[in-house]
């Protein structure tokens, strides 16, 4: 079975191609069947592979063909399955299938139904290739592939330029990271002579020792790719804008799968990162800093999807923190649980948006608890998991991260403390959302309740968001063991209680004492801070000023080809000479004779000036 693992990415890919070619000839029903079915089948196959893997957990490698072979460079189109890959595949196909199903209803009224599923299927295929790749070049193929699909899907409603802008931003910002990663690949290939991940890790640990500068550079370059794709500081600014895409897309790409590719990359190359403590620290600090910053921003947003987007950035920050402190398993674990509950939240918000005539502003919602009960419950469960309330999936994973961070020597407690602060804010903003949207007075009437294609995924994800924490991941063979020394009890108690405190604060602020808080937020200082946070710490503005504007100015300066000025000058010079010389051709004979005379004298002068040395 596992030898045919290439069939799994092929299914959605083939379906995607089919959808593109035959888009005009397929009915909506068959499009949905094809689009959803292919991913469903892929999910089933993945499940089969996973079951097989449980009984026999030796990693498998399937080589299809050699991509290109020049001298020693011989990357292959080859897949490799181990525990980590399998976890990722399950998440991708599983959550992917649910979201496809959800989409089939969500996108019902859209003209470009087939195009949507074509893109979405292609995304699944690319993402599967990314995680299945046994060498970094193939991984990069998937990596860029998902980037393109993300671009296509963010800009899916292409006739609105704002969507296009968001899509471009998403692609280009991640491309900056990707380029760093590609340079990293070049470095690794040049230094170590291979891109096969396992060989690479082996050679790296043989050839380099801990603390060398080369592994640090390589790690930082790979990290560049990771922070771009995973929307970490400072390349995170694309993600909130990427919410311009259809909501299921945000759920699939910008919450559950693609944005966690960076986490996967670092986890996949953890041996390399282990060679460079400073790179690890960087990962951890970027993670925690992003986490706090995004959480703070999420607190003041009013667009439901942007809140979730910032929360995604923040949660991935946690994963980075985990990776940075060497808690690989915890990081991947959180990746999975996050995929469940964040997909849930996004789909929930999608349901709301779907039913509220594309309303995004949470302050125009309210009281939806009774009108959309399924959505309410799923949103509640999702938020609980996001806030890491005890017994939810998010609790287990986040707790694991915080505890392992705490155990980190030197600044471990600091990281833990910061993580806790983040957790507190997370709890506040997630329940702020719940309270504002589902409680209070209704401001907009939903025109319908969701159908089964939307309800089913929500339900399943609800279940996963709760029980996901009890899964045990087959990662023992993949990652080195971390010392599982138990931290002091008070640490754990605080870790558990902080989110609860957050929920309480949210309750006071956004439900119980809403008016008082409202008046408080009207003060200028808070306004200004709020403004600052809302704008995402003004980072967009900064980038605009230091990069985008100058680049555009430069482009405008080059629009009319400044180099041509030089050639034009030559042309003008020649023309001027021509004009002046033409003026000498006056048609007057006397003038002609004068010219001859001058010529005669000049010739005589040159001829007689130099003594005849030749004789």
């Amino acid at each position: 079975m596992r030898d045919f693992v290439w069939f799994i990415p092929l299914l959605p890919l083939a379906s995607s191609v089919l959808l593109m070619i035959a888009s005009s000839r397929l009915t909506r029903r068959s499009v949905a069947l094809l689009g959803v079915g292919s991913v469903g089948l892929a999910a089933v196959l993945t499940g089969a592979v996973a079951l097989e893997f449980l009984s026999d957990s030796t990693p498998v490698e399937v080589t299809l063909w050699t991509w290109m072979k020049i001298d020693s460079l011989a990357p292959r189109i080859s897949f490799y399955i181990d525990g980590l890959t399998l976890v990722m595949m399950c998440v991708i196909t599983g959550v992917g299938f649910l979201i496809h199903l959800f989409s089939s209803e969500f996108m019902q009224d859209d003209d470009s139904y087939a195009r949507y599923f074509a893109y979405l299927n292609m995304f699944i295929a690319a993402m599967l290739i990314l995680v299945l790749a046994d060498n970094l070049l193939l991984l990069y193929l998937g990596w860029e592939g998902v980037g393109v699909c993300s671009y296509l899907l963010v800009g899916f409603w292409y006739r609105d330029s704002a969507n296009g802008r968001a899509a471009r931003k998403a692609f280009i910002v991640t491309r900056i990271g990707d380029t760093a990663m590609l340079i990293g690949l070049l470095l690794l290939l040049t230094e170590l002579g291979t891109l096969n991940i396992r060989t690479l890790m082996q050679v790296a640990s043989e050839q380099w020792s801990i603390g060398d500068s080369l592994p640090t550079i390589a790690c930082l370059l790979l990290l560049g790719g990771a922070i771009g794709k995973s929307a970490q500081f400072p390349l995170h600014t694309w993600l909130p804008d990427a919410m311009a895409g259809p909501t299921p897309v945000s759920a699939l790409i910008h919450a559950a799968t693609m944005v966690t590719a960076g986490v996967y990359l670092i986890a996949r190359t953890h041996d390399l990162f282990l060679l460079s403590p400073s790179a690890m620290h960087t990962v951890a600090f970027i993670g925690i800093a992003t986490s706090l910053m995004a959480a703070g921003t999420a607190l003041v947003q009013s667009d439901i999807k942007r809140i979730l987007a910032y929360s995604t950035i923040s949660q991935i920050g946690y994963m980075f923190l985990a990776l940075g402190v060497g808690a690989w398993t915890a990081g991947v674990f959180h990746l999975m649980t996050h995929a469940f509950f964040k997909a849930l939240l996004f789909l929930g918000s999608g349901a709301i948006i779907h039913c509220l005539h594309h309303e995004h502003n949470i302050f125009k919602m309210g009281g939806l608890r009774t009108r959309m009960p399924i959505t309410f419950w799923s949103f509640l469960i999702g938020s609980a998991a996001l806030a890491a309330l005890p017994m939810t999936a998010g609790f287990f994973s986040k707790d694991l991260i915080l505890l392992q961070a705490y155990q980190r020597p030197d600044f471990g407690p600091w990281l833990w403390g910061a993580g806790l602060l983040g957790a507190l804010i997370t709890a506040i903003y997630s329940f702020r959302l719940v309270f504002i949207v589902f409680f209070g007075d209704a401001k907009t009437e939903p025109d319908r309740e969701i159908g089964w294609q939307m309800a089913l995924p929500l339900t399943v994800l609800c279940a996963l968001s709760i029980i996901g924490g009890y899964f045990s991941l087959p990662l023992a063979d993949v990652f080195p063991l971390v010392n599982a020394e138990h931290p002091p009890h008070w640490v754990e108690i605080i870790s558990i209680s902080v989110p609860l405190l957050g929920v309480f604060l949210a309750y006071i602020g956004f439900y119980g004492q809403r008016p008082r808080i409202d008046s408080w937020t009207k003060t200028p200082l808070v306004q200004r801070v709020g403004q600052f946070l809302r704008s995402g710490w003004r980072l967009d503005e900064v980038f605009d000023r230091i990069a985008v504007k100058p680049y555009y100015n430069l482009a405008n300066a080059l629009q009319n080809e400044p180099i041509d000025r030089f050639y034009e000058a030559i042309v003008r010079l020649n023309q001027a000479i021509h004009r002046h010389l033409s003026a000498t051709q006056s048609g007057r004979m006397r003038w002609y004779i004068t010219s001859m005379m001058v010529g005669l004298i000049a010739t005589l002068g040159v001829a007689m000036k130099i003594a005849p040395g030749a004789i």
Partner: protein
Amino acid sequence: MNSDQLLVLSPIISLSLTALILMIQASIKRDHRIAWWISTLGLLTTLLSIYSASNFSQDVGPLLKVDAWGLWFSALLIFCALITLALSRDIFHTQADTKEEYYLLLILSTLGAVVLVQAAHTASLLLGMELMGIALYAMIAFPKSGDLPLEAAVKYLVLSACASAMLLFGFALLYGATGDLSFAGMGAKAASGYLNNPLLVLAGAAIVLAGMGFKLSLVPFHMWTPDVYQGAPTAVTTFLATLSKGAMFVAMVRLILDGQLYRYESLMNALSVVAVASMLVGNWLALRQQQIKRLIAYSSTAHFGYLLVAIIALPHLGDTQQLGRAAISFYLVAYIVTTLAALTVIANVGGEEDSDMQAFDGLFWRHPAQAITLAVAMLSFAGIPLTAGFMGKFYLITLTLNAQLWLLLGTLMIGSAIAIYYYLRVIFTMSAEPHQLNKGSPTVLGWRNPVALLLMLAVLAIGSWPQPLIDLIGRL
């Protein structure tokens, strides 16, 4: 005078006889068709006589030096005269007055040119040059209609006479310094340390070259060229541009080689200055010229500038001396054939007076054969491969490289680069979609179409299969 000498003089004799017959014919029956046929037959006979003379080459007295080189160029010049004849026939057909004198003038002028290319002596040079020139004045002024021919003729007469005076004065100085009037004698005596007044030699030679520079329209003696080219009937322009200039250039080469003028470095420097100026100014002047005949005139200035480079390179060549002479010959042939082709089409399309570029608008669509001929000619002028001009340029660059004349090489390249623009402009004009304004297809008269095609084929043949010509020139 032995029989061999008579044989080698047969071309000159044949031409003179033709002139005589023409005069007699005029007195019997004035009919220009007959005159035309007599001239044509006379020229063909001359060609034959050149062929028969080509096996003998020797000096005839001190005046003429009949060698293979001279004979070859005589043949070429007579070919030019034949083309001119072909073009003239149709031009003067249409005019009411009888025009037989024209053919007489043409034959006389050709005779002058043939003498000129074989001249080895000041006197023969003077006679050849003046015979050629004076007949030309009349030919230029021949059309009765329009003011331009007259203006051109007067200008050409005065300026040319002035140049002749310069030339003669220069020779007088040379004679004063050396005491010999034949080129070879002058060279030998000047070189053998016989002279005590080097400045006189230099001054004389410089003035002579300046006078010749006028005839070749080298800068700064070039100013008459566009006016005369434009004002003269196109057939006469053709004659002037090819036959007159070609003959004078051959004479100049003879003078410089036989008179050993190349030994004087400063003289060569002066020539270099003239060459550089000609290459640049000629091309610059042509750059945006709207009258196509003026354009050809300016381009001829540039081309003779290129040719001058070959002469200047001669003393620097060392063991590749032969290459130098071959280059000159080849380039001259290429230039003459190309010019003939271009002017034939211009005569065809532009008619006699109107040589404005507008007349060529969309010629490709109106008359493809003519347009392609002109395009090929332009490409040949520009030195694009597969045309005669390219092989000429090929020779020239090889030569300049061998002589290591970097300044001249650089100028040559700059000049060629500028030239591409205006040659291409002609082609572009022809490729435009024809305006409604434009009057159908040009009135292509009898002979000219095949003549144009023939010349185009010649240009292409020389460019794509140059080996026969190279062999021929190598044997000279």
